[in-house]
């Protein structure tokens, strides 16, 4: 009968574990820059209230369940008729309201702060990096330095970095947990994210928004270097890295897994996917799976079609075929 009462303390342990996270080595609790630190401050603030709520409710729960459990000796006890208590109900409406207010103010504050250059770095000139996500790789273009990297990004330490995020295809999410929160990348749309690394080091970045077969491997590294080392790296790249051509770039956008790549120019010269009217690059035939093939439609503004590639003809045929067409022509890619 008192089995139940082992449960309460057992469960009460769990949030304690949750809180002990603060001094463990979880990446969110070990910020390496002011943005992540700002968010962590908010998280810790909320944890205090959560702990409070858990202690109060678990305590009350354990107490009530224990005290009012049915026992053989209270068999004849008939519980009172009790319909409520306005006073109590007002109390437990008011307290949550106060807690929500206490959480709201710093939340809104932080939300606004995160849109700007982090405090203390306002005087430092930010560097801009355009991030383009594609299936299944990350492309980083440095408009000021005129270079491009794939699956890794070097940044100068202590300098605010303005990441301009977009996607060449599917929706993805750009996240470097050690440095700050995440934001989506979307085609024909540009989002912005400020991050600063205040120590030199290597940080893991990932995509958190599922985008198909290669999703789990969509990781990249952020390396923060001293300004000198960064400048030297840029210079080296300019000198030694190969040039990216438009044709090669289109190949880059196809669904592949790549290692690190470096180029001495960048693709912004011919397309910025963040632009509302930018060209579309899609390769439906390359996404065939073991499921039954469906019809693929002609895409009026697809860059590849405009370039007069071989698929054009079969796609037209597709459109002309009767309602039972299933786009089988594209099999076997």
């Amino acid at each position, binding site marked *: *009968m008192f*089995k*139940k009462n082992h449960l*309460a303390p057992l*469960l009460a342990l*769990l949030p304690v574990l949750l809180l002990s*996270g603060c001094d*463990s080595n979880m*990446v*969110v*609790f070990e910020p390496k820059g002011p943005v992540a630190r*700002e968010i962590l401050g*908010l998280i810790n603030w*909320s944890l205090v209230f959560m702990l409070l709520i*858990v202690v109060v*409710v678990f305590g009350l729960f354990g107490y009530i*369940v224990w005290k*009012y459990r*049915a026992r053989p000796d209270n068999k004849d006890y008939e*519980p*009172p008729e009790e*319909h409520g208590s306005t006073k*109590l*109900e007002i109390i*437990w409406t008011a307290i*949550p309201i106060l807690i*929500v207010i206490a*959480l*709201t103010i710093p*939340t*809104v504050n*932080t*939300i*606004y702060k995160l*849109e700007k250059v982090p405090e203390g770095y306002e005087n430092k000139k930010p560097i801009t990096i355009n991030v383009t996500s594609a299936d299944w790789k990350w492309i980083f273009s440095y408009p000021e330095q005129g270079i491009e990297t794939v699956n890794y990004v070097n940044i100068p330490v202590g300098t605010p970095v303005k990441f301009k995020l977009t996607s060449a295809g599917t929706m993805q*999410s750009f996240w470097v947990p050690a440095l*700050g*929160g995440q*934001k989506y990348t*979307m*085609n024909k749309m540009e989002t912005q994210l400020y991050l600063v690394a205040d120590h030199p080091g290597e940080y893991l970045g*990932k995509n*958190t928004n*599922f985008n*198909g*077969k290669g999703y*789990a491997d969509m990781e990249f590294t952020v390396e923060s270097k001293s300004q000198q080392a960064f400048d030297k790296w840029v210079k080296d790249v300019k000198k030694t890295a190969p040039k990216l051509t438009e044709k090669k770039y289109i190949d880059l956008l196809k669904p592949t897994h790549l290692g690190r790549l470096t180029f001495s120019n960048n693709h912004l010269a011919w397309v910025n996917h963040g632009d509302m009217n930018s060209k579309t690059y899609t390769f*439906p035939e390359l996404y065939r*799976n*073991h*499921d*039954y*093939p*469906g019809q693929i*439609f002609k*895409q009026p503004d697809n860059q590849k079609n405009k370039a007069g590639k071989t698929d054009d003809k079969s796609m037209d045929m597709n459109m002309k075929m*009767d309602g*039972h067409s*299933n*786009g089988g022509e594209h099999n076997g890619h």
Partner: protein
Amino acid sequence: MGIKWDRFFITGDPLILGSQIAILLTMIGIVVLVSYLKKWKWLWTEWLTTVDHKRIGIMYILVGVLMFFRGGIDGLLMKAQTATPDGQLLDAQHYNEVFTTHGVVMILFMAMPFLIGIMNVIVPLQIGARDVAFPQLNALSFWLTFSGAMLFNISFVIGGSPDAGWTAYFPLAGKEFSPGIGNNFYAVAIQIAGIGTLMTGINFIVTILKMRAKGMTLMKMPMFSWTSFVTSIIIAASFPILTVALALMTFDRIFGTHFFTLSGGGMDMMWVNLFWLWGHPEVYIVVLPAFGMFSEVISTFSRKTLFGYKSMVGSIVGIAILSMLVWVHHFFTMGAGPGVNSIFSITTMMIAIPTGVKMFNWLFTMRKGRIQFTTAMLWALAFVPCFLIGGITGVMLAMGAADYQYHNTLFLVAHFHYVLIPGVVFAVFAGLYYWWPKMFGHMLNEKLGKLHFWLFVIGFNMTFMPMFFLGLNGAVRRAYTYSAESGFGPLMLVSAIGAGILAIGFAFFCYNIYWSARYADRNISSDPWDARTLEWATASPVQFYNFAKIPEVTSLDAFWYMKKKNKGLKFSNDELEEIHMPSNSGLPFIMSIVFGISGFLLVFEWKIAALVAALGILICLAIRSFDYNDGYHVPVDEIKEIEYGWQNKEKGVEKHVN
């Protein structure tokens, strides 16, 4: 027609081949068994054509159990795959299909049928009605849900499973990135089931508004009926959004329009908005009836009326309104701007207020009570701490700026399982243990029930608690694998073992159903728990017309006070009148088969064939509108006989409750 027969069945994967064989054998087994027992006619007249809300409810529950199996196996497969770093059980494609079907099946084909099933059985009884307002529509609702569920479930053996997540975000879910037909199953099967659900919502709104027993004002209605009522309103308000969104998806995928695509000026964000405009209310659709069940169970087993009934009603209405105003919290990270994110952070956190009120009301219902630890009550008790963890992590996620670090990680996965499993699955178990005698005339075994309870609750916490920490350490959701260097290994293993324990718990539940059906005592009271609401005022299992004479209600907890004051329980024979009941009909069943066939053809993009099949739907509608059968009357003598059968038995109450 250019059908590619060689691509029709999914081949090349031993797991899928095994399932194909298992499905075939099961189907043959069922046909052989039914034929051997000569039960075809019985199946048709008693079940397939029934319009009785109790039988429809039981069939819903059966679908829920089956789909819990399916979704649970998906869950276990995922846990097995990620138990160790670089697991080899599933490849990326297979994992993607598995979490997609897991999510859809659990929410739409497990949680919804379970809850709607229990609503079907209990709500008319609780409000003292003889059936729902539109019995035949109710049957159609069920059969459409069934048809949608079957269509969705065959996808992994025929045609290929959807693989773009249960959220099916565009552009990924569009033809540009998913050119196979897998995701057509998503668009079409959910559409069919969704139509059924929408009709259920309307049906229950009318039933509850128009068919309450004499004297039962809205504020004297049992809490489960209240939550079912509010749920039905949310269904009617939000499911049309899903219907439209899925229709646009179908156009994009099958007819080449550009609502959500990359090219042609589509707006992928529009899908995300429409999806969550339905999706967030949907989580309250599944959690509110659960709240109602807990209210009934807690009140019964504390032997006290619900504390703060009025504020309970106020808070569910508040939750329902707020549930429509928070959808953006699912994509704070989309960069909509700080103003938008702030507003939706606030509306989301505000939901914590009515939810907190409910929590305290439940606790204070138990205070000064006499708490009996029946299995049903144990589920309700475990719900309180577990759901609290789900709730507080929900508030953490609601804080927009903090969400930038939690979003799409396993922290989020842990949170919503901490809400959905205590909030839906615990509730369903509580409801089933509680109402089982009402449905079947025997109880579920309490000993097996407690084993089921402990294994399931411990397994559940072990599975999902580690995911909070994994998420904070940067583990993203929907990733089929991770490297050893990530350091996720140990907690992932704990979590996988927990899932195993949870599964054993569920196995005990299934065994309990079997055991109790065979061996449980049939000689039980019609009111074995000494309960408080009207469903216990009639026989168990309930006679087909529910109440020989509709009881009159003067207060909340009507049955409790009828027992206490010994008033209104008995009636003399000359008070009885003929009862008007609706006739059975095969039309809902046939119509949903036509729906299923048409849907199947549409999934394979055989458009003309699908259109031809869809004509069948119109024909069924036409037949229905010329159907002048308005039911039959149960003669008084028959009622007398049935009533005599259950009312005058001596049945032990006490020995079944410990």
